[in-house]
């Protein structure tokens, strides 16, 4: 598919979508969609010449004939077999559409959950929509802004603490054909409130599936929010994810992203520390094998003083897998007394595997503590020998070491169910 054909296809899909959105065509939000589409068309699918896509090959976007799908067909049994059951409220989205019948009923005081499509007409909500997930930042954000129309709107009212996590389940039903779906969340955590969110993505069926997921998160003064992603999808799944966050003073935000399988995964996490005294943690683990690609781009923007950020990413690359880590930390002139720490450690299990790691620190304040470290290497032979010298077989010793390496990230997850499930998945993936 040529670039022109591709753009025509997208334009065509936009038309289909416009019909679904009938009645909104005259609205402000619809003209915003058009602007976003124009912004995407201007850039198109990025090539290796784009700084943010330097190591990320996107040729598959032209090769596959992903069909925009606006409705899937998923039974409760299929859901049960596909998705782990955590002690959490489950919100299920299939092919970009909210599936109320498959979702849990949530009744918690101070917690409002709606389908985003139903609330965008509300001017207070449309005023903040796309404010931090600015489509000019990234072509896939732009594409999402143009095409996504359902997703979770989650509002946690002031002083409300939600103990039970919310599990956002993103499913592509690819049983009949290759499927493409857009999906968008807006999460608003008010002053002193607290919430934990888990997002998992899944493909049902053997056909290719492409997901474009965007979450916009506002964390108000003194609030706490966690956003965890677990990605363990099929060998024909392609995933573009964005988490765009704005933190106000004394707030605490944490992400952890565990990417364990999938043909292609790109995660952007972009956090602006917009008040003093913020704490922001970003953890990640990725395991890439076959000829798959997992790409993590993070951007931490220290805009205000006295904030602390901790970034801890680890990866294991096997076979012909490609891992990419790009972690940018910006410390603006006002952001004195910033503490910013970043670490990215990688293990290569094969000579054909690749890791591109790039820490980027841009510091414009003079009274700050910032550090970063990136390592790439093979599994430590000394450690392996040490274990074997105690009677542990080579295979088992490798498994133990690799799981310990991943475990350092996983054990930082505060949600027990998710932690246990991830530990088990990792053990499965890293037993040779």
């Amino acid at each position, binding site marked *: 598919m040529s670039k022109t054909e591709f753009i025509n296809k997208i334009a065509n899909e936009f038309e289909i979508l416009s019909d679904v959105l009938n009645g909104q065509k005259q609205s402000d939000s619809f003209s915003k969609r058009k602007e976003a589409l124009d912004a995407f068309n201007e850039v198109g699918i990025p090539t290796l010449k784009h700084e943010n896509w330097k190591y990320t090959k996107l040729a598959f976007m032209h090769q596959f004939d992903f069909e925009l799908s606006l409705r899937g067909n998923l039974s409760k049994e299929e859901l049960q077999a596909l998705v782990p059951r955590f002690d959490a409220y489950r919100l299920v989205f299939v092919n970009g559409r909210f599936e109320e019948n498959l979702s849990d009923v949530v009744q918690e005081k101070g917690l409002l959950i709606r389908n985003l499509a139903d609330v965008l007409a509300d001017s207070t909500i449309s005023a903040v929509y796309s404010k931090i997930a600015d489509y000019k930042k990234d072509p896939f954000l732009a594409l999402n802004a143009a095409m996504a129309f359902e997703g979770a709107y989650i509002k946690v009212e002031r002083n409300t603490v939600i103990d039970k996590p919310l599990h956002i389940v993103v499913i592509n039903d690819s049983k009949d054909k290759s499927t493409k779906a857009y999906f968008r969340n807006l999460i608003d955590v008010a002053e002193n409130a607290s919430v934990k969110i888990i997002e998992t993505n899944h493909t049902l069926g053997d056909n290719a599936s492409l997901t474009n997921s965007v979450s916009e998160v506002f964390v108000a003064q003194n609030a706490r929010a966690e956003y965890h992603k677990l990605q363990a999808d099929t060998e024909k799944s392609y995933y573009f994810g964005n988490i765009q966050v704005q933190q106000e003073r004394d707030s605490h935000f944490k992400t952890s992203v565990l990417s364990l399988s999938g043909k292609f995964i790109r995660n952007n996490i972009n956090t602006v520390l917009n008040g003093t005294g913020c704490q922001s943690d970003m953890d990640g683990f990725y395991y890439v094998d076959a000829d798959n690609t997992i790409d993590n781009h993070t951007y931490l923007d220290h805009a205000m003083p006295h904030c602390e950020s901790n970034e801890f990413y680890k990866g294991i690359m096997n076979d012909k897998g490609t891992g990419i880590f790009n972690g940018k930390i910006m410390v603006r002139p006002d952001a004195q007394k910033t503490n910013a720490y970043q670490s990215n450690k990688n293990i290569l299990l094969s000579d054909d595997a690749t890791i591109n790691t790039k820490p980027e620190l841009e510091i414009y304040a003079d009274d700050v503590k910032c550090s970063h470290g990136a390592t790439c290497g093979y599994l*430590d*032979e*000394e*450690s392996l*020998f*040490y*274990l*074997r*010298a*105690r*009677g*542990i*077989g*080579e295979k*088992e*010793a490798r498994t*133990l*070491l690799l*799981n*310990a*390496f991943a*475990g*350092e990230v996983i054990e930082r997850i505060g949600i027990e169910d998710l932690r246990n499930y991830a530990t088990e998945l990792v053990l499965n993936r890293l037993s040779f």
Partner: protein
Amino acid sequence: MSLLKIENLKANIDGKEILHGLNLEVKPGEIHAIMGPNGSGKSTLASVLAGKEEFEVTEGKVTFDGKDLFEMAPEDRAREGMFLAFQYPVEIPGVSNANFMKTAVNEVRKHRGQDALDAMDFLQLMKEKAAYVELDSQFLTRSVNQGFSGGEKKRNEIFQMAMLEPKLAIMDETDSGLDIDALRVVASGVNKLKNENNSFVVITHYQRLLDYIVPDYVHVLYKGRIVKSGTKELALELEEKGYDWIKELVD
């Protein structure tokens, strides 16, 4: 019958021969000390016996408990009852001491045809053995050697030895860098483990250790061979006169 028999052992690293035909025989219940100047091949000997892969054995034969040692992978040597106390114990982040030992002990038990220990018995055993070397039981939940002091690392080696109950323990400069209190703890741990069936090969630089772990035999290793053997008095002589007279004797 001998527990360990080394005959004419020659070994290389990176193409350079370090051991030039070494002979040694250790019988059950014996403690042998191996001393020698820097670069004489002491640590190479320990590594070759434990099965470290960067060393290449070019000639000779080693029999361990009647079996050809070089036919066995490192883990099989350990399962058969050989133990190397490392000169530089490795830090393993993310693997707890308890998990490490549980895996190791159960692998060894499996090899001996014994059932795996259940969690309660295992914890009991670990606490008991940790007390041998005065390690606080809290250390069990910490990652292997991570953030340990030099003394704690060496005590952890002896703890592991106590857990695995080897037939032959090779201690590679376990005393190096230890203060006198830590040295006493380590030595007393070894003495508690000592019985008439197991044997120790104690590689050391300093006679000091041998005040606490009393050897039956002392050997001097120089230029990749054992050039002199004697009893514990030889160690005292080395302490007093240094190695120059040995070097003159050989060169």
